[in-house]
């Protein structure tokens, strides 16, 4: 009942037609690529005598730009969709950080959907060439897994960017505070940008651009928080707004925010150091199920053939995967729950 591949007689009798059609498609694609390569060869002969771009002409770049143009066209076509625009807001911070190709959150969502459809098509083609076809359950599973894979990839890249900023946050804050005593905010920001590199440099350049366009320091920090979702920027923005209304200066706001954030980081480090031993032990313990699974695969792989042939066995495997994920998430929640101000 729950199966990915279909072995129906009706479908298997028509598979040769699918296979012939796919072979013809593949031959067509090869001819198109060959024709394109001939045109590039001709272009390269004239290249030395014409105004050419700095990059060499590569086929993969051409297809990549065509793919991006296709996604731009689709995002223009779906620009009025309320459903997609609602979720595009969550992908706005990814622009410029995860990728330099996509300029809006909507394009990220559409690229993920297109990627999942392309994986589905490629898996379908490979299966048809071997004599199988996907059932509806397999159809849904491939779409979900491929969408999850690419979405997780994007999220991981963005999270690495955020972690880099968090690591070096207190370093550049100390330098900034030391420079604020003698310089204005933009001048001290310039001097800090020259000393930093990587993701911190990118983020501070964006802040500097906001200030050059005329925004206040409070708005610049708020926009920084909305882009990176790092709470330290929100706390600094709060203090910059509140303290002048209470009777203080901007230098008082920076000093007070720095002391509070230092205390927060001290508490976090205390918790981290005290729970580090237990966390390492639990991580090693979580590798034991994988070790057992690998043992079975290497020494007795027929174990899983017997289990997956029954419904009860598939339910047990599903329960094992769910329990494993719950275990990992619960340990992370208990031991590494964050300290928030």
């Amino acid at each position: 009942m729950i199966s990915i591949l279909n072995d129906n007689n009706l479908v298997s009798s028509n598979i040769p037609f699918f296979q012939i059609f796919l072979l013809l498609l593949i031959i067509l694609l090869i001819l198109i690529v060959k024709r394109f390569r001939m045109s590039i060869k001709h272009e390269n002969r004239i290249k030395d005598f014409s105004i050419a771009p700095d990059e060499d002409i590569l086929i993969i770049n051409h297809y990549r730009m065509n793919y991006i143009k296709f996604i731009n066209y689709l995002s223009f076509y779906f620009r009025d969709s309320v459903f997609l625009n609602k979720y595009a807001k969550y992908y706005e911070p990814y622009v410029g950080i995860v990728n330099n190709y996509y300029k809006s959150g909507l394009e990220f969502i559409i690229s993920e959907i297109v990627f999942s459809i392309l994986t589905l098509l490629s898996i379908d083609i490979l299966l048809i060439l071997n004599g199988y076809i996907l059932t509806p359950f397999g159809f849904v599973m491939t779409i979900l897994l491929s969408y999850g894979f690419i979405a997780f990839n994007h999220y991981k890249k963005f999270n690495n960017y955020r972690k880099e900023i968090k690591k070096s946050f207190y370093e550049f804050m100390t330098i900034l505070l030391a420079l604020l005593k003698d310089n204005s905010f933009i001048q001290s920001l310039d001097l800090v940008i020259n000393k930093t590199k990587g993701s911190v440099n990118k983020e501070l350049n964006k802040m500097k651009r906001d200030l050059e366009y005329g925004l206040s320091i409070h708005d610049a920090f708020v926009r920084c928080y909305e882009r990176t979702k790092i709470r330290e920027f929100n706390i600094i923005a709060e203090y910059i707004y509140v303290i002048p209304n209470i009777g203080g200066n901007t230098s008082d706001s920076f000093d007070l925010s720095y002391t509070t954030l230092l205390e927060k980081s001290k508490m976090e480090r205390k918790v981290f150091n005290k729970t580090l031993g237990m966390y390492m032990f639990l991580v090693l313990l979580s590798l034991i199920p994988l070790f057992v699974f690998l043992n079975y695969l290497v020494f007795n792989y027929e174990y899983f053939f017997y289990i997956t042939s029954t419904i009860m066995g598939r339910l047990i495997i599903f329960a094992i995967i769910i329990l494993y994920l719950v275990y990992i998430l619960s340990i992370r929640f208990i031991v590494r729950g964050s300290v928030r101000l």
Partner: protein
Amino acid sequence: MTKIKNKIDRLGYHAPLNYVKFTRIRFLTTLFLFIYLLFILTKDYFYAPIITILYYNLFRVVLVDWPLNIYIARYEREAIRFFELVKLSLTKGNNIENALELTAKYFNSELSYAYIAALIEVKFGKSLVEAINDMELPSSIVKNALVSLTKKELKSKNKLEVMDNVIEVLKNNADIEMQKRINKVPLQVLVVLLVIFVPLMLLIIYAKDIVMIFN
């Protein structure tokens, strides 16, 4: 009913249910669960009382106790930042009442909302001390800190010392709560290991035997 009412009032607008609805839903769901487990499952009569008692207590714990603990911890951490801002405005020349009013007006936190509600009562004729005593705050430490700040016997020179003491008390309390949380971690990890890890390993090892029993 009064115990639950007090806890739900402390949650304020974060509470999931009114205390009357809470008790009614809890009673009805435990009753239906008990009847279902006794008569419809037609298994042993051993599990029904145990599961219903666990459900009855977990209903309160999950919906009221845990959110209340998280809320109190967040409230006390925000109160530290509130009082640090009040101390800053005192050093710039304001008196206590103006400092509290300005920070409550411009600093977004639960304590500032409660203080603004107390100031509205002051406009209608109450004195500030009365309004602060009538405030219903989730944590008693913050309330005692506010009461100590607005006493009439304080002179202008001692106010900064009182502020320092208040902030020190709140920070020590936060350290103690953090230590308690760290000490609870081994117990929670043990529960997770017993409830999740041991069944997981048993499933992996005895999967084939379970399938053979069911087939």
